[in-house]
């Protein structure tokens, strides 16, 4: 019998704080065990910027706040069999989505940028300009949860989810035994 091939996993951090990727590393020495079952393809952990092959699992941290986020997410959807939203920002938009609350304005995006770079208190922006380098991706009108842009197969909630939960979920998923979380696992009260 031929040995089963390792599962291919890709990860990306979109509009998040990278905390969820830190949490992945938080599984500590179990990473060694995990690496015996998977290989990492496109990911900030490998610094591969493109997919080398189709992947079994894609893990997304963060929601979509700009066009590049959307592009990456759509690329992940097309190249991964199973797509996981990891953490609150990926699932619901999280902290970046606070700017969606500027809703009673004719130009909410401009208002947001002006407050962030020009009019806000305690700013130390000597140029008084809104950054507009041609290399900067265009912002979206609001911050979108991943699920609003592509179909998501599983959510791992938390801010950030613990290394334990990420490890357990991936191991179960690889064994084909993941059927969602027990309520006890994901309640916080």
């Amino acid at each position, binding site marked *: 019998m031929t040995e089963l091939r390792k599962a291919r996993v890709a990860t990306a951090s979109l509009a998040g704080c990278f905390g969820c990727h830190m949490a992945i590393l938080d599984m500590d020495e179990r990473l060694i065990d995990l690496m015996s079952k998977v290989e990492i393809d496109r990911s900030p952990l490998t610094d591969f910027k493109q997919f080398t092959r189709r992947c079994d699992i894609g893990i997304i941290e963060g929601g979509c706040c700009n*066009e590049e986020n*959307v*592009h990456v997410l759509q690329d992940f959807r097309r190249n991964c069999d199973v797509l996981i939203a990891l953490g609150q920002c990926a699932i619901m938009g999280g902290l970046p989505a606070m700017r969606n609350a500027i809703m009673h304005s004719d130009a909410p995006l401009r208002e947001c940028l002006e407050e962030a770079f020009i009019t806000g208190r305690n700013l130390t922006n000597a140029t008084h300009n809104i950054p507009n380098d041609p290399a900067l991706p265009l*912002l*979206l*009108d*609001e911050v979108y949860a991943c699920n609003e842009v592509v*179909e998501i197969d599983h959510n791992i909630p938390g801010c950030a989810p613990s290394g334990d939960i990420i490890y357990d979920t991936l191991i179960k998923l690889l064994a084909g035994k993941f059927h969602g979380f027990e309520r006890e696992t994901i309640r916080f009260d």
Partner: protein
Amino acid sequence: MASHPEDTAQKSGLSLEEKATIRSICREVEDDPARMMDILLRVQDRFRCISAPAMDVIAEATGLSRIAVEGVASFYAFFSSEPKGRVTIRLCDDIIDRFSGLASVTAAFENALSITVGETTPDGAFSLEYTPCIGLCDQAPAAMVNDLVVTNLTAERVHEIVAALKAGAPPEEVLVDRYAERTPYQRAKEMVSNNIRHAGPVLLGPVPEDAGLEAAVETGPAQIIRTLETSGLRGCGGAGFPTGRKWRAAAATEADRRFVICNADEGEPGTFKDRVLLTERPHLVFEGMTIAARAIGAKEGIIYLRGEYVYLRDLLEEVLADRRNRGLLGPAIMGVDGFDFDIRLQLGAGAYICGEEGALISSCEGLPGEPKTRPPFPVTRGYLGCPTVVNNVETLCHAARILGTGAQWFAGMGTKDSPGTKLFSVSGDCLNPGIYELPYGVSIRDLLEMVGAEDAAAVLVGGPSGTMIARDTFDRRLAFDDLATGGAVVVFNGDRNILEIVEYYMSFFVHESCGYCTPCRVGNVFLQKAIGKFRKGLANPSDIAYLRDLSDTIIETSRCGLGMTSPNPILSTLENFPLVYSAVAKPSADRTRATFDIQSAIENARQLAKRRSHIYDRDFTK
């Protein structure tokens, strides 16, 4: 910095004379904060708006905080903080009106007045707006013009009306021929035809005058309640609570004051039976209230008339005055010592939620029309904390007839669980829209034949909070144990788009949710958006499960009937017209969301940054 418009209004304030006017309006109701609705209605009437400075004066006079006054003033659709035109035209925006040519009527008004819906002409002469169902679906398209109504509108008629109004004629002269010479009843009949297509033996046939009240005076309170219980009468507003049991509970509660309230806030789209009773049988309504007062020992009564039926106010006030003159209201009714009872008319101001009895009581108390937490039920703690019986117009009429003619006679009609007759208000795609008084238990098929709607494809029973059924179940019967209804039967033929109808009704509930419970306030918006996806062909098969899931949450977690029934247009069409949904839902090929449109999402940023996208503008390098 330019001054904020509100600041200038605040600074300019009111003249001394205007302040005195507002104070005297408050004094007319003894500065009673519980009469806030009357105060606000009169201020709105007098000044065409309730401005911030006016609210200050009202707050001072009634001893309330300014924010409490503003809370009420901002709750109701017919109150406005900005001045409305001297003639305010409210077009009924119900789905029936839309299917009856509302678009061309709207265009005609916009054209003739040179404003769009939602605007006021610069000279302050006209305002034009939309309002949900005004209870005239049997003669759509219809509109309110100040306190009057106009029906069967056409573009031609609109131009005539606007020309006459612009020439300076008062609305009543334009809409009612020889207005000044006519009685309130004649005026109402002139504006609205009641389309009684089938009169039954209880309400719309010949009715002996005050026979029920005479019987009630003879037999006394205990026997009145026993008679009602024997008759099996159930509330006609939709929920069908046994009337006798309600009265018994109110009578049994210890209290110094008790109240009888007639719920004439007929807001369920497609329902207009109370309009007909209030016009054609007002004495019977008040007779029923008086009997209820006798049964429970109430001295005070309120008839809560929806703001849209303000054209019936004079008629009802005249009937009340007449009954007072004849000793049928007031002290010692029919010469019986201690049988004192009088009724005041409370006008609403355009809030569907006030048809819910808790919200209706709140509104009568001068509060925003928000439902109350139950229990306690109104029969133990209702209006001003006193035991209160709230009954539908039709229920009270039935009660009067039962007392006059007998419980057995009534119970002998209809079905075992739903005795007696019921008024059905039929509208939509049929030859004879109007009112049908029929015994409970009549089948939809028989009713459709009667109204001339053999080509009906869908029938909405009980309005949007009721059930939409399809051809294969037209044998179902109108009764509490099958298809319950407060009276609305709306017929749609095969040319109508079910999803368009559902989307309209969801937008209605979004508009009318009082906002107290988050699942209702927010959830209905999500439902409306989701239906929008189906309409645009962007829905995914999983969205069908989402609709069900979200609906269940809203129903489970809302405290009043609005949230508990608002998902019904979706749930009942999912149940009875499943193919309509599955036909337009399709999975996306590459599992990306068809609803997400990157071009519109980056358009703002493109304009702000004054550059194109490296990723999504294909011709960037050209």
